[in-house]
């Protein structure tokens, strides 16, 4: 329960970076990956992501569950795209090279395959970085990082509160669910869907009403301690930036610029080998 976000404590250069720098890098990296469909850049980012993973000393077996889940999601998503829109690649790349005729509207074209390759690369270049961030950043440092990269401390504190109270809410939920089931509220597949929805509400109502009491208690306690009186606040887990933090943020910033330059040079967000 405490390890909900899969923080894995090891000693590696990536673990030693500050959370704020890692968060900034994560955002810049995802922006570089999201802004275009430049196949070579995406492939290079994928390779770089895998290398970074090696450096972080996180093993594949530490995250095999999450990886499996994510890859299923990616495959389902790709299948769904093909099922619903088998000619999407053709409309993007503006040419049509039929490789194989299936049945009905389902034709395999080189353009469509290339488009799917790009979609898959988009996942493979961002997923390792997200996993890396999750596995190497202490959740308690996360809120401090948000404040550091410019999010107002009130909102950062709300995030910290959310992280702090997730285990509590979870425990309260389990207790109420057990109590209600002991009183005969059916939650399993035996009940119909609508029935089950109603029964879940029997758990939610006490859960949410008690949470609202908790909101009152916490906000009174915070107010008594003078929260929100000053413009700034300090964080227990904040650390100053080191050399590596600056270097990696600069590299990720450069990636964003590179992606934008490629888009400008190319004249479109898509790298098109079919012209």
């Amino acid at each position, binding site marked *: 329960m405490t390890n*909900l*976000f*899969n923080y894995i404590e090891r000693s590696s250069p990536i673990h030693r970076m500050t959370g704020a720098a890692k968060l900034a890098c994560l955002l810049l990296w995802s922006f570089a990956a999201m802004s275009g*469909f430049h196949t070579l850049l995406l492939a290079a980012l994928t390779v770089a992501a895998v290398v970074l993973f090696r450096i972080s000393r996180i093993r594949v077996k530490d995250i095999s569950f*999450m*990886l499996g*889940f*994510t890859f299923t999601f990616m495959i*389902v998503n790709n299948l769904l*795209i093909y099922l*619903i*829109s088998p000619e*999407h690649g053709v409309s*993007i790349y503006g040419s049509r090279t039929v490789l194989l005729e299936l049945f009905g509207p389902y034709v395999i074209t080189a353009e469509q395959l290339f488009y799917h390759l790009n979609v898959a690369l*988009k*996942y493979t270049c*961002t*997923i390792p*970085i*997200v*996993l890396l961030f*999750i596995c190497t950043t202490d959740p308690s440092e996360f809120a401090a990082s948000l404040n550091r990269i410019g999010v*107002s401390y*009130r*909102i950062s*504190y*709300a*995030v910290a*509160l*959310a*992280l*702090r*109270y*997730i285990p*509590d*809410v*979870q425990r309260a*939920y389990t207790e109420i669910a057990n109590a209600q089931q002991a009183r005969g509220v059916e939650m399993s597949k035996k009940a119909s*869907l*609508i029935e*089950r*929805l*109603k029964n*879940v*509400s029997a758990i*939610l*109502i006490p*859960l*949410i*009403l008690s*949470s*609202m009491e*908790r*909101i009152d208690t*916490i*906000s009174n306690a*915070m107010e008594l301690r003078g*929260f*929100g009186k000053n413009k700034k606040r300090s964080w227990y887990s904040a650390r100053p930036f080191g050399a590596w933090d600056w270097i990696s943020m600069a590299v990720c910033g450069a990636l964003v610029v590179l992606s934008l330059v490629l888009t400008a040079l190319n004249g479109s967000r*898509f790298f098109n080998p079919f012209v």
Partner: protein
Amino acid sequence: MKKFSVKTIVAIGIGAALFFVLGRFVSIPSPVPNTTINLQYGLLAFMSVVYGPVAGALIGLIGHALIDFSWGWGIWWSWVIASAVYGALVGLSAKVFKMQENELGKKGLIKFNIAQVVGHIICWGVVAPVLDIVIYSEPLEKLFAQGLFAGISNAVTTAIVGTLLCIAYAAAKPKAGSLTKE
């Protein structure tokens, strides 16, 4: 930067925690494979009515982002933003139509449900697909199919869960002027 009250901040934190727990652990399997019914939007609509549009938007944003983080597939920004927009829309309409969360009568509940259904239509039918096209350039038909399913199932669960919550909350809170002189 506009000042939030301490209560709003705490409501955002606890609301996001609730949103996270409901979205991550409390899933009701639906007849459609690989999809679960999202209870958290009922909660989100309710919290937006009680604590206002800003709290609603941030509960949706933080809660949804944390869910995505914990699954490890990265943040699916388009849907995270759609959740935030949903919270803001319901919160705003509660303000505009003057829904009093502690005495929603039949009229209030109807207003609440109209607001939440319209909110879902805008979020999953417009905001999420448009952002998906901008960010991920996915085919239109797929996105609208996904959005349609998400929108309908979310609207149904919100109607049931959100309405029940509003009724329970109204019953638990003392109403203005409920004290009588003896």
